[in-house]
């Protein structure tokens, strides 16, 4: 007998490099319980009870998003978009899901379309991810008899901001992967000016299983505030980096053990990707993953990227590198982001190099405060959240760099057993 809290769910029976075809998919998960047209609202209520939150980064309640599009004026035709364009450089979870279980995502897209009454469904995948593109294309061709609305595959050029939902809608309409000014949000005016639901592919895969098995089944794993399972990508100094499906509320320490434990002495963990927050190694024991749990601690899970920084790495150099990446990946549309992020990255680089005045970090903090909430999208806000956590968690290292003392990471003997050179 199958236990209700058995994991994996989304990645059940899957193998990297060989996507589950339709027969295998139906064997694994059973027939898709696509709700009848009249059941749209009923299905949204079930999703609300399940507590499913968006797995793309924001953690926004899925049922609220479904409801917003379903509530659009009756005469307007609706669009649903599956967002498989993960922009986080370390994140592999959406790509893995699409490559292993493409039908589960397409089932979820069909459920979403039925919920909101959409007559157009689009699935967006990174164009350079040939494995995911191939799996999705093959899956779509198998489903012509299954779906009321045929999904269309759109290949999107990879970029950090491509997965931002207004950028994705803009790309579908105009071919330009740039965020747009809000309002209007996609649920008001999205693809072709129509009310549009943009939902992460993992969220849709959960939706597909909730439609089959119900809200209670979903909640059998995870906690009250962070129910269900979730996909995470573990990277950096662990024994077995990769994508894992875990209870959404798993303690971080347990996840690291699950991923093979530390491969060398760790000094910090970056949670939530490049726009996430640093946590010192000694804080890890008290941390629980999950959007609600992280939010309560002042962090954010983002798209579920966990990066372990080894003690032999310089945290200031690492932070400067990420700040520069974020500056380089600004869309360049809004002044505060276009000029502010490079200034902040420059200050961190100067500190990392040791060629700076004491107090240089205050400039990074000053510019951070200045760009706050002044972009059309949340890219600058994510960048300054990351920078603020670097200034906080690595304050001592920054002082050592600014005052010309040796960097702890590279001075010999400090990182016992893990000397850098």
């Amino acid at each position: 007998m199958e236990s209700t809290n058995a994991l994996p769910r989304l990645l059940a029976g899957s193998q990297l490099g060989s996507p589950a075809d339709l027969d295998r998919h139906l064997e694994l998960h059973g027939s898709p319980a696509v709700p009848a047209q009249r059941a749209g609202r009923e299905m949204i209520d079930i999703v609300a009870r399940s507590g499913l939150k968006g797995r793309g980064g924001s953690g926004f309640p899925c049922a609220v998003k479904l409801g917003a599009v379903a509530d659009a004026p009756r005469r307007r035709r609706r669009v649903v978009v599956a967002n498989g364009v993960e922009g986080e450089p370390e994140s592999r979870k959406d790509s893995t899901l699409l490559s292993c279980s493409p039908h589960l995502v397409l089932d979820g897209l069909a459920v979403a379309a039925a919920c909101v009454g959409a007559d157009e469904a689009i699935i967006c995948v990174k164009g350079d991810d040939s494995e995911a593109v191939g799996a999705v294309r093959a899956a779509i061709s198998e489903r012509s008899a299954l779906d009321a609305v045929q999904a269309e595959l759109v290949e999107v050029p990879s970029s950090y901001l491509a997965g931002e939902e207004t950028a994705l809608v803009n790309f579908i309409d105009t071919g330009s992967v740039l965020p747009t000014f809000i309002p209007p949000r996609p649920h008001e005016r999205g693809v072709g000016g129509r009310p549009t639901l943009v939902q992460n592919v993992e969220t849709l895969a959960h939706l597909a299983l909730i439609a089959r098995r119900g809200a209670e089944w979903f909640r059998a794993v995870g906690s009250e505030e962070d129910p269900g399972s979730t996909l995470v990508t573990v990277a950096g100094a662990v024994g077995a980096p990769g994508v894992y499906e875990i209870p959404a509320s798993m303690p971080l320490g347990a996840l690291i053990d699950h991923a093979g434990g530390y491969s060398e002495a760790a000094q910090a963990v970056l949670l939530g990707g490049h726009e996430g927050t640093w946590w010192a190694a000694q804080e890890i024991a008290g941390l629980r993953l999950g959007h609600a749990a992280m939010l309560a601690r002042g962090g954010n899970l983002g798209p579920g990227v966990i990066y372990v920084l080894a003690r032999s790495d310089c945290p200031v150099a690492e932070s400067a590198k990420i700040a520069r990446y974020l500056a380089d990946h600004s869309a360049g549309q809004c002044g505060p982001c276009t000029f502010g992020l490079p200034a902040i990255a420059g200050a961190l680089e100067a500190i990392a190099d040791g060629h700076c005045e004491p107090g240089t970090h205050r400039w990074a903090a000053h510019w951070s405060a200045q760009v706050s909430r002044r972009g059309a999208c949340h890219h600058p806000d994510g960048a300054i959240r990351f920078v603020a956590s670097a200034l906080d968690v690595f304050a001592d290292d920054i002082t050592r760099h600014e005052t010309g003392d040796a960097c702890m990471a590279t001075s010999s003997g400090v990182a016992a057993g893990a000397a850098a050179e």
Partner: protein
Amino acid sequence: MTILRVNPIACDAHGLCAGLFPEWIALDEWGYPIIDGRPIPPELLDHARRAVAACPTLALLLEAKHPEGER
């Protein structure tokens, strides 16, 4: 209640707004406006309207304030 908002994509840092309504608009070191998000008192609304009208890229907007937390 009325607030000022800037469309940062449209804004080109001409800076006229800060000259016309310095009570509510400052410029950062690159010349882009930093807008005070509080509701504008009625006696200053004329200044706000002049700043909006002067923007060469139509980036400055007067808006009715939405309740907090609305998506």
